[in-house]
């Protein structure tokens, strides 16, 4: 097996980790990589598409298992909607396979480039978290290889402790080798979307709360530049599937060519170049303008139909948009808060960020519900994701501000999500996961990985090296 030493980055281009890259094609080759790592005294971290904003897929100085070569859809049953896939299968491959036959992945991320292995490791949620939960809730079974060499099969019934710990376990207990996921039946390639403005944070959150039960998806855009009585204003997009009779030509709307994002805008301009034109706007004044313009454009309330892919994969609309943030890259700060405390906490956070002159450029809100995975980020409440540009000049100030944010979130019973936050400390993680959950996870870690072979930069940041 070829091992290449190479520089890996995170999605936000804010971290670099030189690593030995191994690209296994089979379970046996993963096993061989484990043996090789042990021989060399190195640690191993599995890497999917490298789309997390932090250090979840990085293992500086160690081995990164690039899972992208294990990307076969092994079985697809269009009758039951069950798909058995290798872990390197991307959401893009999956939806393009199942959508023309009237199915859609039950939970998807904002980009379709993510791999199923990565999605399970982070236990991702979508804009339907309040209704469908995380992706893990739709996994009927998975197989995994443990560092001990044991091949295991887990389902909610079989090896349930590992099922609920490995999903959301960030690849630190074993490496997924196959994943069986149940798709959601759809009756049209289109969603019907209600778009309406919300004038402040209080109305913003109540719109999410009240809108959720009547829709399948709900997401809010939050104008991070607005202050005063308009703090937290934005626009809600609430979508629902079409019923059987609502789309006269479902076969037509479900065709791939009616779903795929166009490679050009205005029919002529290649989107691959678009991020260069965003760069001049990637500063406080530029994004202030973008946010204000977006809010004004959002004022008329309207309802429209939109293909699934266009509604979900906003992050893919401008390829490489993250490059527009420049050399320092960007970070995302996402906090999950109970519905009772969210408004107070985010009022404080948004005001603090304005006051300290470090506004976020993009804010996104969602509605959530709890789940029963061991390392869960979910709450009965909301999440707010804030993007910040990183520069040499703002690093220290931004770090101090995020530490203050962490305290506000913890004091309000909030949680964090490790596909996103890059600065969360071990103490903070222990505080919101709770001592017993962490102890339970570490016990499983000892059982599955007695020699501490699986480690990522994220793992070392949150749990430290194993004794």
């Amino acid at each position, binding site marked *: 097996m070829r091992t290449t030493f190479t520089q890996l980055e995170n999605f936000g281009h804010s971290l*670099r980790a030189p690593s030995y890259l191994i690209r296994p094609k089979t379970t046996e080759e993963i096993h061989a990589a484990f043996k090789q790592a042990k021989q060399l005294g*190195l640690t191993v971290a599995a890497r999917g598409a490298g789309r997390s904003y932090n250090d979840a897929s990085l293992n500086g*100085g160690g081995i990164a298992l690039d899972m992208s070569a294990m990307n076969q859809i092994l079985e697809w049953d269009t009758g039951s909607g069950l798909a058995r896939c290798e872990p390197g299968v991307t959401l893009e491959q999956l939806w393009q396979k199942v959508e023309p036959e009237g199915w859609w992945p039950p939970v998807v991320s904002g980009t379709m480039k993510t791999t199923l292995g990565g999605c399970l490791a982070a236990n991702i949620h979508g804009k339907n978290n309040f209704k469908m939960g995380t992706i893990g809730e739709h996994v009927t079974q998975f197989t995994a290889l443990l560092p001990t060499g044991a091949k295991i099969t887990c389902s909610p019934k079989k090896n349930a402790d590992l099922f609920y710990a490995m999903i959301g376990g960030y690849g630190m207990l074993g490496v997924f080798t196959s994943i069986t996921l149940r798709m959601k039946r759809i009756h049209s390639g289109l969603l019907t979307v209600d778009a309406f403005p919300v004038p402040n944070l209080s109305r913003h959150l109540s719109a999410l709360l009240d809108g959720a039960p009547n829709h399948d998806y709900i997401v809010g855009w939050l104008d991070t530049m607005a202050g005063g009585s308009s703090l937290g204003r934005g626009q809600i997009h609430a979508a629902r599937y079409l019923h059987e009779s609502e789309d006269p030509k479902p076969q037509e709307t479900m065709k791939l060519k009616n779903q795929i994002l166009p490679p050009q805008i205005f029919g002529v301009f290649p989107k691959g170049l678009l991020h260069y034109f965003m760069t001049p706007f990637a500063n406080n004044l530029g994004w202030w303008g973008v946010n204000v313009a977006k809010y004004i454009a959002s004022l008329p309330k309207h309802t429209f139909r939109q293909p699934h892919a266009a509604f979900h994969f906003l992050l893919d609309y401008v390829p490489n948009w993250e490059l527009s943030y420049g050399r320092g890259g960007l970070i995302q700060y996402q906090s999950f808060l109970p519905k009772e405390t969210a408004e107070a906490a985010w009022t404080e956070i948004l005001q603090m960020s304005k006051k300290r002159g470090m506004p976020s450029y993009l804010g996104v809100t969602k509605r959530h519900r709890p789940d029963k995975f061991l390392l869960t980020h979910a709450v009965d409440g909301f999440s707010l994701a804030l993007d910040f540009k*990183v520069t040499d000049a703002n690093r220290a100030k931004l770090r101090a501000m995020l530490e203050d944010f962490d305290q506000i979130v913890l004091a309000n019973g909030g949680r964090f999500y490790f596909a996103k936050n*890059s*600065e969360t400390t071990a103490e903070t993680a222990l505080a919101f996961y709770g001592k017993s959950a962490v102890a339970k996870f570490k016990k499983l870690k000892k059982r599955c990985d007695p020699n501490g072979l699986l480690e990522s930069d994220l793992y070392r940041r949150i749990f430290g090296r194993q004794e």
Partner: protein
Amino acid sequence: MTSQSFFNEVPLPDLANPAPSTPLTPRRRGIIVGASEGIGAALARKLAQEGYVLALLGRQKKKLTALCGEINQSAGEARAIPHPHDVTQYDEAPELLRKIVADLGGLDVIVFMAGVNYPPGGADKYNFENDRKMVEVNLLGAMAWLTPAAEMFQNAKAGQIVGIGSVAGDRGRVGNPGYNTSKAGVHTYLEALRNRLTRHGVNVLTVKPGFVKTEMLKAAQGATPFAIEPEKAANDIYNAMRRRKQTIYTPSLWRYVMFVIQHIPSFIFRRLSF
């Protein structure tokens, strides 16, 4: 105060867990080969102060451990990890390099500082054993460490190599042919690495110190003009690293002195006594 009681007073930072590198607190990671004393130790203190996490290598275990203890105490976290090592154990270098890079979680810079100077004892004396030791440590030691590091940096398309040459490597002189040769070899080797690696985004810095008030200076024969403290040399090196320079003299005055010396024609130079 012995190093033992020093450690007992305040708990040591957790050496197994150097502070993590995050987007907002990026940690630069470095190796200094030859850090037990002299310019190496001074540079270790300087880089640690600037936030680097370091692996410090040297032959003198006690001094190395004490230096790491001092650095970590004053930083309040693990910034320096000691690795006792003799650079003439060439076969150990690749494996130790791999282990250190794994421990540090990456590598931004490697500094090869180890050097010995054993003059033959006069312009009419010859001593192959001394010459051999100098080439083995100064030149082969550098090649043993910088070759695998260069390969790593080339693949990662990033990194910085700092090698310590000497003003003594700019001309062959009557006093110490072996030392001149070892340092001239280092200059040429670093130049070759620079020509290979610049296109891969790797910076190679050649440092040519004049006289520096270290243990090595005691071996020097004759006058030692413009002698500086190791801290001054370390500062110069750090500034050059930041600016990603190619070659520096420390103190910088030597650039002009050596420009003149390098241009002394041989028919004059071979009659000189220095």
